[in-house]
């Protein structure tokens, strides 16, 4: 079994529902779907340049989840860590499920938002497996 972990870094935008979908899907992956293999990390700590956090990300796999085309998580992780192993856009999951329009409320999240978060989480969990598999084979 690969000793590496996969870090998941959601963008955590608060202004729109897409940040909530990204965040909630990260929680689902970390709590439920890939509990043993994943860790979450705070994007602001990465932006701040906290050494221990950045070193850990460099040594492990990194998945970013962005809420909009500005890609704050991807851009910041690339700048501070120098690599991203996979990227997900929450807008993509919304586009793939046009009939499930996310509600605009963030706290609490609406039903459609929760369903979308779960669908995204499943995609992310699959990628976690792939990344660790590739790493094991290397």
């Amino acid at each position, binding site marked *: 079994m690969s000793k590496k972990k996969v870090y998941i870094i959601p963008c955590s935008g608060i202004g729109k529902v897409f940040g909530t979908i990204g965040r909630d899907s990260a929680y689902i992956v970390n709590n439920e779907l890939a509990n043993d293999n994943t860790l979450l990390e705070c994007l602001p700590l990465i932006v701040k340049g906290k050494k221990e956090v950045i070193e850990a990300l460099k040594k492990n796999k990194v998945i970013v989840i962005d809420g909009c*085309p500005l890609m704050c998580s991807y851009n910041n992780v690339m700048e501070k860590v120098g*690599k991203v192993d996979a990227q997900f856009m929450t*807008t993509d999951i919304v586009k793939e499920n046009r009939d499930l329009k996310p509600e*605009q409320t963030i706290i609490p999240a609406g039903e459609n938002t929760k369903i979308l978060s779960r669908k995204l989480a499943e995609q992310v969990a699959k990628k976690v497996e792939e990344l660790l598999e590739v790493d094991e084979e290397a």
Partner: protein
Amino acid sequence: MAENKICILPCNGLDKSLGVIARQVALKVIEKNPKIELICPVLLNTGEDNYENLIKSSKLILIDGCMTRCATKLAEKRDSKIIMKILIPDMSKKFKIKPCKTLTLDEQNEKLVDLISDLVVEELNKFEEKKVSVSREIEKLDYFDITIDKYYFRVPKVGYFFNENDCWIKSEAKKALVGITDYLQNAASDILFVDLPDIGKEIEQFDDVGSFESSKTVLQLISPGSGKIIAVNKDLRDHPEYVNQDPYGKGWFIELELKNFEEDKELLMDGPNYFEYMKNKIMKEKNHLYQLKSEKNV
């Protein structure tokens, strides 16, 4: 002529098969279309002058082997016109062929190289066809602008005309581009889907000619002009965010062959007038919201 030249820039990843695939794809594309010129990423990276004129006058295809996107980063440092971006992991997923572990490609990965290079050539052919939409050059525009709270609204000073539905039209000889204003894209928030009309359709001024949907709402594109639709911006199907990012440029929706623009203009606002109209609209909405929220909290 150099203006129509196309160049291809692969990444040069050496530590994974993905980089090898990226390079092989670029070489295969050139084999199939010898008019395309290869740009060496290493040479490009060693000096600002290298490839300077070529990049300025050409359109660029980028092939990245992994999420580090070295080719994209190199291109974005220069004044380049990128027409296509290929990311090998996405292609691997699309064609369901996993990248091999070794730096020498196996049979399956050679097949992947063929599939990707065929796709690039096919997309390039579509791009060059006149009937399909092309990405428009982004002009440097002069704007009126206003910031309200943290929101920033712009209106081009000249060249654009507007209707009261916050849609614009920009004419050039007998043709015109149509899109939505900064105000409207702001109101819609992140646009996720764009529904475009059929090419060839005849439309009248103020016809509903398409729609765009965000997580908040669905809104209509109400044409400020009349004529025949001769092109639609198909880029918006994969990149609806262009409407938010550049509503007066990359985010155009349709192109018209104009019927009678001089007559249509009589019912439209020019830049200065639309800017005043937009400001009044924003302030009215702000006051109304302020009142509503105050009443709610009493």
